[in-house]
């Protein structure tokens, strides 16, 4: 025993209620977040079993997964049965006495966007949500992970979860990201190198100079893709960047309590000499703007590289899966992706829909037009992001360029609001999953940064944003 501990071990120990044996422990859960697709069913099922929410003050719900994002929206969605999700979640949230950020509330938005905005997630907290991208919130130094609806019922009823302790993995990103290289590119670079199963069983701590240099929003994007890495979750040790971000947020502590909290949060780092079960390093200088060619986020390549031959990706693919992805995406090994004509461009989702994302995309769109025949859509991650962007005039930039400017929600990252892209359309998207038919029937989704989406929308083809002058 060295006594040296990782940040994960510190948070875990602080939350331990009981050792249940066989590697499973009972942990206190400090925050439960819900949305109308998986949360409503959890609340209803809990009530049907005659159980109560143990700590309703620490539970928050929002509408993002089923509501549509069209201007003037209401409880009705294009998905015929969508209204039931919205009204059921609203009724169940009221009955349970939890806080709901409903439609029309200026605090409404994608759950992982609004939680940091409202100061709901704080360093050192345990936070769960029946949503795989809950790992995003590790960006603020919390232990935040995605669960199923039944586990959410458990967290609601007991303010705890029975959790199998994950192993620890540190990903150190040395050096600095080059100009024009974003946190999204870094995340895709890591996935391409280490595979979509690369962090299975691990809680990943992102560390190193390049990570320290990221804003809170950039860290949220990096941690967001930890679920695509099969990680239990991701976490980044909190620092002044996080404390400055959180101070004054509605649910963050105030006054003397703030000082007390920050003093505790300053202890949340991995001690020198703390032992990780696995450690890898990444050279930030080697990261280029990335784009995916296939149907797994690990199918990512630098924008200026051709679609790889099988032997160059074989570590993480079977031949059958590789061939299937090529055929589905209608791409050719050895041929560049840049230049492929696109049907649509999408900026949004819990990955890349915050105000910094929109600013960087808008900088490329200012004075330019979306190419003829391309459908371009921008969906701010929260109503607050939307208002902030409008205060800066970003909405005008998107609209003048020919983008649709939407209300906040998950939107066409998948089928939210009942909307999707057309059959076999090629879409460049700032989202997180390029799975078969996720964004529409047999749609061909290319994951990339908001900059690459913006540049491609203008070109009408997959394009490198570094070639556009700002």
């Amino acid at each position, binding site marked *: 025993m060295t006594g040296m501990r990782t940040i994960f071990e510190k948070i875990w120990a*602080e939350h331990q*209620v009981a050792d*249940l044996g066989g*590697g*499973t422990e*009972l942990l*206190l859960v400090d925050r439960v977040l819900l949305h109308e697709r*998986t949360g*409503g*069913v959890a609340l*209803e099922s809990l009530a049907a*079993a005659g159980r109560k929410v*143990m*700590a309703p003050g*620490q539970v928050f719900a929002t509408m993002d997964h089923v509501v549509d994002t069209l201007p003037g929206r209401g409880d009705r969605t294009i998905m*015929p049965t969508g209204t*039931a*999700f919205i009204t*059921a979640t609203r009724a169940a949230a009221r009955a349970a006495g939890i806080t709901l950020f409903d439609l029309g509330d200026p605090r409404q938005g994608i759950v992982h966007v609004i939680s940091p905005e409202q100061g709901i997630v*704080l360093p050192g907290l345990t936070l769960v949500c*029946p*949503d*795989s991208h809950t790992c995003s919130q590790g960006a603020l130094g919390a232990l935040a992970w*995605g*669960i*199923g*609806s*039944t*586990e959410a019922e*458990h967290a609601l*009823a*007991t*303010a705890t979860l*029975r959790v*199998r302790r994950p192993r620890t993995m540190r990903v150190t990103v040395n050096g600095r990201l080059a100009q024009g290289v974003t946190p999204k590119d870094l995340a895709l670079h890591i996935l391409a190198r280490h595979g*979509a*199963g690369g962090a*299975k*069983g691990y809680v990943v701590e992102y560390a190193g100079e390049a990570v320290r240099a990221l804003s809170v929003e950039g860290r949220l994007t990096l941690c967001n893709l930890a*679920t695509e890495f*099969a990680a*239990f979750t991701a976490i980044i040790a909190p620092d002044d960047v996080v404390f400055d971000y959180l101070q004054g947020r509605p*649910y*963050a*502590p105030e006054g003397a*309590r*703030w000082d*007390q909290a920050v003093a505790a949060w300053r202890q949340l780092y991995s001690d020198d000499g703390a032992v990780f079960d696995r450690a890898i390093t990444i050279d930030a200088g080697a990261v280029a703007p990335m784009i995916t060619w296939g149907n*797994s986020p690990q199918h990512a390549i630098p924008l200026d590289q051709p679609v790889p031959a099988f032997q160059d990706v074989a570590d*993480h693919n079977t031949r059958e*899966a590789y061939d299937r992805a090529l055929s589905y995406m209608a791409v050719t090994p050895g041929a560049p992706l840049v230049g492929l004509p696109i049907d649509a461009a999408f900026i949004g989702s819990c990955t890349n829909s915050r105000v910094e994302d929109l600013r960087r995309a808008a900088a490329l769109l200012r004075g330019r037009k979306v190419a003829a025949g391309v459908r371009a859509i921008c969906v701010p991650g929260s109503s607050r992001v939307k208002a902030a962007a409008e205060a800066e005039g970003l909405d005008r930039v998107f609209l003048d360029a020919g983008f649709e400017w939407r209300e906040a929600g998950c939107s066409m990252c*998948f*089928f*939210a609001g009942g909307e999707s892209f057309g059959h076999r359309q090629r879409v460049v998207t700032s989202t997180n*999953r390029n*799975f*078969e*038919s*996720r964004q529409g*029937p047999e749609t061909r989704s290319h994951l990339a940064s908001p900059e690459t989406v913006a540049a491609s929308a203008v070109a009408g083809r997959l394009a490198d944003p570094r070639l556009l002058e700002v």
Partner: protein
Amino acid sequence: MTPFTTLTAIAAPLVRPNIDTDAIIPSREMTSVSKKGLAGGLFAGWRYTAVGGRDPDPDFVLNNPVYRGAAILLAGENFGCGSSREHAAWALAEYGFRAILAPSFNPIFRGNCVRNGIVPVELPTVAITWIASTVAEAPRTRLVTVDLRQQMVTAPDGGTHPFSIEPEAREMLLHGLDAIDLTLLRRAEIQAKRQADKERRPWVYL
């Protein structure tokens, strides 16, 4: 939850890596605020000829009559990756699957299986491929056995494949336990911990 001790059943092969929960049940098939009524949407994108349709695609494995009644699924690595939607586990369970054999599972999906009476069995890729090949010649008679008590899979050729599963999950599955009931036996312990924690970290408690 139905207890699981041992099962001998038809095994259907879908041995492909990274089968995601969007593929297991597409968003458009999750049409009600319910854990039920999802079996028809299972693998809808592959199982039917058209989006939203119900005409079976004869090329999809579960539409092959020899696999009718399959209760064991043979799958590839990182099975259940992607969205946390428990609807994937609910749909598989309602369709009739009680065990999934794969080299690895997405962690959230794996937890969802355990809470819905589906045994996630991790076996090496070579074992899965071998079992699939021994089943293939006569799936309806060459059955696979999953014995959770012994933590052993027996292939139709008599070959045995031991697997490991954490004690907590095994107990839950063997006895069909409800985790909330178990945890609430510790209510006093939880309250005491919360009370002490509130003194130390008052900002956490809203």
